């Protein structure tokens, strides 16, 4: 490849959450990134969602800051309302032709919306799944990025009222035609998202015939506060709130006849979530979920499902309804309750169908020539879900298989990593740095404070009377400007902040909305855009700390919101500008754990051009993979292992330490000092925790008796021909998993693992009689549902049990006693071999690592990521990352996605030679310091030291590169000489006084 001609830019096709995540990673790593989006705004399906499972985070609240980040990133260019026409060329040099559709609105648009107001045309709104209405000139949703209106030329009647309304802005131009733009890029990431199967193809379910039979996504828009009913749930025919809602799962999924033999992977959890949301709004509405197997396999999902059952009283009925018909205003669902073996009918007034996810990969196949599998998803290569058959073209999200947001984001980072690795030699050649205007000086000025109070749609405004709060805050001294906004984090609001700062000559700014933990960086940067020092920004949290937790106290919550903001005003008056220091970044990473995830992560980081120290506590690399002999659907672990080890050896940038543990850690992000047990001392800029999981050693179901094994032990037996033909093999699922008292989580891999092993036994010993005792079969992964079907065809018996009815039991003679909930009868099976699908448990080193690196573990004992949906590969502590089973149990493919993905997260950090240090640190006023040294005793980082200032005169001194700004020294200082900047005594006293002030 000719290095000179390689392009340092990447094309991302699709602006959904996958495209957004990939672009941000690439742009931060120093690549120019183009996002092509077919609709007028980025955001994709996630922007349509209300809350996300299982944490019930508001989807828009978590993604809106990212949308704003993208819109301001100097290395990202969004090309909305456009489609790719042609892709030529090869890895390193693709030529792309893009058709920008005629929007008839030009760059003069400021998103004021006056055109839309006067437009007389109303058409069904795609954003509301065609339930609500939009105009012919429109912006799809309030937080749209870019906030530029477009004219839907198909429906526009050319009345030119919009042109009149836009008076003089010259923003609407009917002479604009489609435009072809040509780009040169080095790599392509295709994230087309997905389609949904048309449920009217199962006419017996009445979709399209009865108005109150909706699809899952239609219902999502109905319950969303930003939806066409404002979140009010009512029936479209009589505008009454339904009393009973049925949720029907697997509509078109797991259905060979319908054309989707696979599991759509997200429907069970979104149905559970929607039930919980319904119950939150209307506890009196009865919700029933009709399912075949409830697949709550991801992190936190089983726990969420249990809460839905136990706390919210949602009914789960095992049965697949065969027919829905309307009787009067009721919808009658006919089904067989398979745990009672009887056909039943039940009346509902609304039915929600979880229709299947379908691939949307035509463009990938036709234009990029990427190979698809028989279901139309991208055929992955080299057992890596991100690699396609065309070099330089990568996919993420649902392109390769159905995925939830967490897994989508991991693959998106992965795609960014692979594209970046291809173009490592031209990194930075087309990138720009973020630039801010010079800071204005506030010294000696009287405070002039501006305040934005956010409605957050209805998240705040439904509990807190925002207008009343606004009017009160306006009366406070030094508040020069105060306004309420629908979404403070939306692009239009963020554009307004610098404007009002300039207009009102503000020198402090407060946003009263949500939590600083997620949104502070966004608003600080926004203020910087106006030349204001970011530390002159103050955050008031009136959502997490107020509206969301005081639903039942609207009056008190409103008063509380006033006090919260009043205290912020008091603090803002005293805020001072702070300046960060700069430190050099050690452009090298350490990966802890040499299993497959750790090896892949190390290899991928090295491919980005950075050195890696790979630390493994065992004698050889490989981790749990060494104990495996065959992986589902059909992979050879030995082959994979050999290949990975040779890649690591061949890479040249990876230093492997075997039989080694990390013994000491010093320093901070960008500059960690690490001591290893083999005596090595090294410096790294980032640390990845890839410490894998273990298989639980069961203490139940007769484990320890002869012929009772775990699944891993069974693999060993099969490999060594340790079974005999004609034996009865009984497998028990969920051994130690899904147990509220011990491990509430689902171990995610055991169903597929058991079925694969059962098929292997059957293949090698055709006369074996195999039973799998299960609670729900969770074969959600690509190829797994097909394997499950295969097992049925191979006469493997599946018996369902329910621990709430009766637990199975293995007696001393290996006779398995089980109550079959589908036949409603007790059974006894004399087993020659009992195989326990034992839980996946946190590795034994987790606690030690957690202590050493001060990284949190979740209640399940696995490492706790920064954000389950959008930051699954980061820790909240800067410089630390995680991947693979350290985060939660996963299969090989999902581990690969995370391991490749984490390299992009590390790459973002290491790509910069210099980084800024914490600005809010401690400083010493030497006049007050008596040199007692108490600060040096409480400082955990050795940042506070005594220095000699004269004969016998010692003064405290703070090393600004080491100080993290915890403030322990300031609390300890007996004279007030130590000041914790940005959290100093005066500021905190002012806050206390303001809260307690009598009004």
């Amino acid at each position: 490849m000719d290095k000179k001609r390689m392009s340092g830019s990447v094309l991302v096709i699709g602006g959904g959450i996958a495209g957004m995540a990939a672009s941000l990673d690439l742009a931060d790593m120093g690549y120019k990134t183009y996002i092509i989006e077919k609709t007028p705004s980025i955001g994709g399906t996630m922007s349509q969602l209300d809350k996300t499972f299982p944490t019930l985070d508001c989807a828009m609240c978590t993604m809106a800051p990212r949308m704003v980040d993208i819109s301001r990133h100097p290395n990202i260019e969004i090309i909305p309302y456009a489609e790719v026409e042609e892709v030529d060329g090869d890895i390193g040099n693709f030529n792309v032709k893009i058709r920008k559709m005629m929007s008839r609105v030009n760059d003069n648009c400021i998103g004021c919306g006056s055109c839309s107001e006067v437009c007389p045309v109303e058409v069904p709104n795609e954003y509301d799944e065609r339930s609500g209405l939009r105009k012919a000139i429109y912006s799809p949703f309030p937080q749209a990025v870019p906030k530029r209106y477009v004219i839907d030329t198909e429906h526009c009647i050319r009345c030119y009222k919009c042109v009149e309304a836009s008076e003089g802005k010259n923003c609407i131009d009917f002479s604009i035609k489609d435009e072809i733009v040509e780009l040169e890029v080095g790599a392509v990431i295709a994230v087309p998202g997905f389609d949904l199967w048309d449920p009217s193809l199962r006419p017996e379910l009445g979709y399209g015939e009865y108005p109150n039979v909706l699809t899952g996504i239609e219902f999502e828009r109905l319950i969303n506060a930003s939806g066409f009913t404002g979140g009010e749930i009512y029936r479209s025919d009589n505008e009454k709130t339904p009393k009973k809602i049925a949720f029907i799962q697997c509509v078109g999924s797991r259905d060979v006849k319908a054309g989707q033999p696979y599991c759509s992977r997200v429907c069970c959890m979104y149905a559970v979530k929607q039930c919980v949301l319904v119950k939150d709004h209307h506890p009196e509405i009865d919700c029933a979920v009709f399912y075949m197997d409830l697949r709550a396999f991801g992190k936190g999902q089983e726990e969420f499902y249990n809460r839905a059952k136990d706390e919210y009283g949602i009914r789960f009925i095992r049965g697949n309804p065969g027919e829905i018909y309307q009787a009067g205003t009721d919808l009658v669902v006919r089904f067989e309750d398979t745990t009672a073996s009887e056909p039943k009918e039940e009346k509902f007034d609304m039915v929600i169908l979880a229709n299947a996810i379908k691939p949307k990969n035509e463009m990938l196949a036709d234009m990029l020539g990427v190979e698809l599998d028989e279901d139309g998803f991208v055929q992955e290569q080299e057992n890596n879900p991100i690699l396609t058959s065309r070099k330089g073209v990568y996919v993420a999200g649902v392109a390769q298989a159905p995925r939830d947001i967490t897994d989508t984001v991991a693959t998106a980072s992965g795609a960014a990593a692979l594209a970046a690795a291809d173009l490592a030699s031209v990194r930075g050649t087309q990138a720009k740095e973020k630039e801010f205007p010079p800071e204005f000086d506030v010294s000696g000025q009287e405070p002039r404070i501006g305040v934005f109070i956010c409605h957050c749609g209805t998240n705040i405004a439904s509990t807190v009377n925002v207008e009343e709060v606004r009017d009160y805050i306006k009366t406070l001294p030094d508040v020069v400007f105060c306004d309420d906004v629908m979404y403070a984090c939306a692009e239009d609001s963020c554009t307004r902040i610098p404007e009002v700062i300039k207009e009102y000559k503000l020198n402090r700014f407060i946003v009263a909305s949500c939590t600083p933990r997620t949104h502070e960086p966004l608003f600080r940067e926004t203020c910087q855009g106006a030349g204001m020092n970011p530390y002159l920004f103050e955050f008031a949290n009136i959502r997490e700390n107020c509206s969301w937790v005081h639903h039942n106290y609207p009056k008190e919550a409103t008063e509380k919101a006033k006090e919260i903001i009043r205290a912020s005003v008091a603090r803002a008056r005293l805020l001072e500008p702070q300046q960060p220091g700069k430190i050099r970044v050690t452009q090298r990473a350490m990966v802890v754990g040499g299993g497959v995830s750790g090896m892949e992560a190390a290899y991928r980081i090295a491919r980005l051009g950075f050195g890696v120290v790979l630390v493994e506590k065992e004698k050889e690399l490989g981790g749990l993979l060494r104990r495996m002999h065959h992986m589902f659907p059909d992979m050879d672990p030995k082959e994979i292992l050999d290949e990975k080890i040779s890649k690591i050896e061949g890479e040249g940038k990876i230093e492997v330490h075997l039989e080694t543990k990390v013994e000491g850690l010093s320093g901070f992000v960008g500059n960690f000092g690490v001591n290893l047990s083999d005596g090595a001392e090294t410096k790294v800029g980032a640390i990845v925790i890839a410490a894998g999981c273990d298989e639980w050693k069961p203490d139940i179901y007769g484990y320890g008796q002869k012929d009772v094994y775990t699944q891993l032990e069974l693999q060993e037996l099969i490999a060594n021909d340790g079974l005999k033909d004609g034996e009865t093999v009984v497998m028990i699922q969920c051994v130690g998993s899904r147990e509220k008292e011990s491990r509430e989580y689902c171990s995610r891999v055991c169903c597929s693992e058991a079925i694969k092993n059962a098929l292997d036994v059957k293949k090698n010993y055709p006369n074996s009689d195999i039973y799998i005792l299960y609670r729900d079969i969770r074969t959600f992964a690509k190829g797994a549902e097909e394997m499950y079907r295969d097992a049925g065809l191979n006469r493997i018996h599946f018996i369902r049990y329910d621990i709430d009815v009766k637990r199975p039991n293995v007696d001393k003679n290996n006779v398995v006693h089980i109550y079959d909930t589908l036949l409603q009868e007790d059974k006894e099976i004399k087993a020659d071999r009992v195989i326990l699908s034992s839980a996946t448990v946190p590795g034994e080193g987790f606690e030690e690592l957690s202590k050493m690196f001060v990284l949190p573990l979740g209640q399940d004992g696995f490492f706790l990521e920064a954000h389950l949906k959008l930051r699954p590969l980061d820790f909240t502590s800067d410089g630390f990352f995680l991947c693979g089973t350290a985060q939660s149990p996963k299969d090989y493919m999902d581990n690969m996605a995370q391991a490749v993905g984490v390299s992009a997260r590390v790459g973002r950090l290491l790509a910069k030679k210099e980084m800024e240090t914490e600005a809010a640190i401690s400083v010493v006023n030497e006049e007050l310091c008596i040199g007692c040294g108490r600060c040096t005793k409480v400082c955990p980082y050795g940042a506070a030291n005594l220095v000699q200032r004269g004969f016998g005169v010692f003064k405290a001194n703070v090393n600004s590169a080491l100080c993290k700004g915890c403030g322990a020294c300031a609390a300890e200082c007996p004279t007030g000489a130590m000041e914790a900047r940005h959290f100093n005594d005066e500021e905190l006293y002012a806050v206390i006084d303001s809260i307690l002030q009598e009004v």
Partner: protein
Amino acid sequence: MWAEEREENFEPKIIAFICNWCTYAAADLAGVSRIQYLPNVRIIRVMCSGRVDPSFIVRAFLEGADGVLVSGCWPGDCHYVSGNEEAKRRMDFLEKILPMAGINPKRFKLQWVSASEGKAWAESVDSMVEQVKEAYIEDKKKIEGLKNIPAATA
């Protein structure tokens, strides 16, 4: 005395100094999970419970706070290694001297809440409100008792 100045069905106002990394995260979690708790608490976010100077608590009581809650990461989990241990040492000392200043010790609490314990945060607020109300009743009784003592004859 404090209880004397309060109304009959009084709702205490509680100041909570909480650390950014554990308890504030837990409060966020309570928020996103919509776990409901009493609106009596006012949160003051500090980076670490180790930042909490006992003088802040004294200041709060002097300015009329009915209760003060200090909360941070569990021992061993401190984001800054050991700040919560410093907090514990200082708060233990403070707890000893509060009664000497005539402040019912029930009006003060130090509580560890981790980032994953949204529910625990909500419960600790609710129980603190309860606890302060108990202190109110106790102190009220004390006042009644004092009134019933016949004037001392010298």
